[in-house]
């Protein structure tokens, strides 16, 4: 990985989310909070409408890192802050743009940190994840 440099892009991708995707994630994760599937409940707590689970956005965004490193088990650490909600329109869904770049290279540990940017194209390119970072094992490392 010596050819990698801090700041290098690992590419970008688009994630689309529909109401059906939210219901599917609710079932798969066990998070049935109605703000993720009930318009009336969401509006009753002053949300603009049904919003995506933050954990769905986090879970979907990391696919870009998996595609880059080729092994989902090589992702040793993955964190984010949730900085903006993602409203999912009943007709149009939501479209997120995910891009990643090399944030840090640790040759001793044999890891590379990928910093992800996740923005919501339908809502002024709002930054929905902040400090979204994945640490990936890329080699055995040189630390004793």
């Amino acid at each position, binding site marked *: 990985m010596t050819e990698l440099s801090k700041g290098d892009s690992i590419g970008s991708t688009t994630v689309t989310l529909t109401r059906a995707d939210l219901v599917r994630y609710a079932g798969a994760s*066990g998070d049935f909070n109605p703000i993720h599937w009930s318009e009336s409940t969401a509006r009753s707590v002053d949300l603009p409408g049904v919003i995506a689970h933050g954990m*769905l956005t*986090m879970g979907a965004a990391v696919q870009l890192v998996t*595609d880059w490193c080729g092994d*989902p088990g090589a992702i040793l*650490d993955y964190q984010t802050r949730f900085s903006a909600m993602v409203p999912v329109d009943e007709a149009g869904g939501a479209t997120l743009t995910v891009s990643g770049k090399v944030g840090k290279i640790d040759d001793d540990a044999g890891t590379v940190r990928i910093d992800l940017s996740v923005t919501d194209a339908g809502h002024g390119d709002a930054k929905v994840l902040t400090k979204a970072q994945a640490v990936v094992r890329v080699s055995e490392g040189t630390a004793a």
Partner: protein
Amino acid sequence: MGVNPDLQGRTYPPTEPYVVGREKIREFAAAVQATHPAHTDLAAARDLGYADLVAPPTFLVTLAQRAEAAVVADPDAGIDFSRVVHADERFTHRRPAVAGDELLGATTVESVKSLGGHTMVTTATEITTTGGEAVSTVRSTLLVRGEDA
């Protein structure tokens, strides 16, 4: 009633054992649009050196949220779930969970911090096998909105 500051440092008993199933991994992978074949194809997982299907990087939220529920359910905690917003999440993996793992999740409240009328509650859930092997740590921060906010 606000969040009880004495919550900090409290550890809750582990969840019932959770057996990671192949179909659950496939279902979760589809839900988060995780398309790597190691999540769905046993031969692909074994080619990478894993014993069985590999869970996606955020899969253990399913178990961690069960364990964290003990905090919110604690009558002494003073957390009104309708006022809770998920602020951040972090997974630190010793190894990926794979199908067949039998796991426990035990949650400790790492910190309770007041912030302008709100309270930030950070939990750390240690995920171990029933045999005692450390697998992952899942950290989560809930922002509990204040009554006047």
